[in-house]
């Protein structure tokens, strides 16, 4: 039989976050992206970008240059399925900066990708996506 002692759970941090649906969608999207076998590495970052506002940035390492397009389509489809209300942008990169335990260095990643995002948003490739 399972017994428990009453605890003051509030001291562990508030679980009633402002947007539970977004949080659940974000983490479900992250898991879905990790399950994609058509990309070598992936990182999902939530940030604010100029002109775009709230953005989901999906950085991925394609299996090969020829498979970059399929990786981008898979990532965009997952974003549209899980969080259709948030602007999402998938960018191919050769490397995702990480700490020793594998955690993504998100700030460094966005710094690195920002010029390519700006370019993508004005290019025919982005329009075709």
């Amino acid at each position, binding site marked *: 039989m399972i017994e428990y002692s009453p605890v003051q759970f509030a001291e562990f941090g508030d679980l009633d976050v402002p947007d539970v649906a977004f949080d659940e969608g974000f983490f*479900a999207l992250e*898991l879905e992206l*990790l*399950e994609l076998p058509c990309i070598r590495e992936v990182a999902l970052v939530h940030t604010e970008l100029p*002109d775009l506002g709230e953005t989901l940035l999906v950085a991925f390492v394609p299996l090969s240059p020829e498979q970059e*397009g399929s990786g981008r389509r898979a990532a965009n489809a997952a974003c549209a399925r899980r969080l259709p209300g948030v602007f999402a942008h998938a960018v191919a990169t050769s490397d995702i900066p990480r700490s*020793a335990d*594998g955690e993504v260095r998100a700030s460094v990643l966005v710094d690195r990708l920002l010029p390519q995002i*700006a370019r993508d948003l004005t290019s025919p490739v982005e329009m075709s996506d």
Partner: protein
Amino acid sequence: MIKLDDIRRHAANRPEQIAVVDGASRLTWGQFADHVDRMAAGLSAQLPPTRPARAVHLADNRWELAVAMAACATLGISCTGLDTEAGAEELTGLLTQLQPTVVFVSTEHRPVLDRCVWPTGPEALHVLLDGAKAGAVARVAGVGSRSVSFGTLLATEPLPSLPAALPYESLTVIPGEGGNPRVAVRRSAVEGRHLVDLVDEFGFDGSDVHLTAAPLAQPTARGLARTFLSLGGTLVLGRYRDPAALAALIAEERVTTAVIDPVALVRLLSHPGSETLAKSAQLRCVIALGRHLNRWVVNTAWEQLGPVLHLAYSTPETGLNAIMGPDELHVAPIRSGRMMLGSSLVVLDPDGLPLPAGENGRVAIAGYQVMDGYLDGEAAFTTLDVGQGPQRFFVTGERGQLDAQGRLVVTSRSAEVPTVSRNGAVDTEIFRLEADLLNLPCLRDTAVMRVDVPGLGDSLVVPFIAVAVGREVTGYKTLTAACNRRIPSLPAHVIAVDHIPYSPTGTIKTDELLDSVLPIIKLNLQLEHTMQQEMSA
């Protein structure tokens, strides 16, 4: 790390067998015992009087570090690993918390250490692991700390009997978001129980050759290195960031077990050198932290390494708690694991009550590996009885569920979505700069890249193709002016090129481009610097 008594026991049984491999350096058990004996004596003689005595290390994996860690374990001094990629600010915060009496550092990481100033810094002893082979104790210029080389300590005569070990203390750094790391403290030894559980779970033994391809600062890597040395196996340290060298090391050293950090594992599997390891190598178990690894890694590891990959779930606060074996990895969701011996897990609802299987909540873990608390304050613990008497559970920041098969599935790595805060002004100007450059008629093509590399720092690199041969100067002047007008806070390095490489879908191949232009930019900067020096002279 392993203590001198255990090393002596192995040295007596197998004095000529290799204990530690680091490139061309090979320590037999006899040499390892001698080095640790001398190191412990040297440290004991030089140890500052401050208590509790604590050591930290800021160095990549090397045999000298293994000796230093074993000497510290022998003397009862905690030896905490610091992230070698952390900046001076983050390290200063950690050193202020840890107040180390001894700092083991390599030449490569000494400059960043010298920029760190912490209250007890002047009393600390710095031990330089490489570089000068021997020398007297000296003062570190500008810092006031005493500095001694590893070679000097190693030249110390062993003591007839070592001093009594200090009270046990083990400290583990927890990387914090936004550069606010914390430190987990354990005040009772768990190494013996951990060894027994790992042997029960995996069947490790003294014939294993274990590769540590992750920083020894990482708790799982350190724990497994200690386990294999305690069993009398061979510990292989290597340059794990180079995938070709790592693949060669696995085959040449006949590695049977390995712990590989996630970045090194992805690079290894992406490298052609790993394609034949399933047939040519002796690997039987590879452990990697699984929180950030994806399906491609699981599938490719099976193909290239064989059925050996185990993804581990561990936290610095709770230790190595769950693991997923290679067979089950193919059918289980990513980020899942089975609880290991000695760990209990519950999923809690918002009121702190245990949830049944299949329901999502906060993950809480109990067991002998769980820390006693944080160095700087209280931690979130709760006492629950889940059928084994009251147990103290650490409430992690992660959410997950126990599925119908009894596996832990981590569904989110924090309570809420982390948002990366940005410098909006700089980001806006980078967007504007891209638009500006598209409208310049004097360029055929250009690429803006933001880099942060040694020698250049945080800066823009802007290669361009001029509109015609002989028009490079115009392009250079125009681009430099555009960059300086838009983003004066970032230095811009503008350079003419013949070709800008693109992927089939139009993404700039930044690695290829940077490889071709960075050496030229660095050379130009050096020439400029030399000219300025000559002019000022």
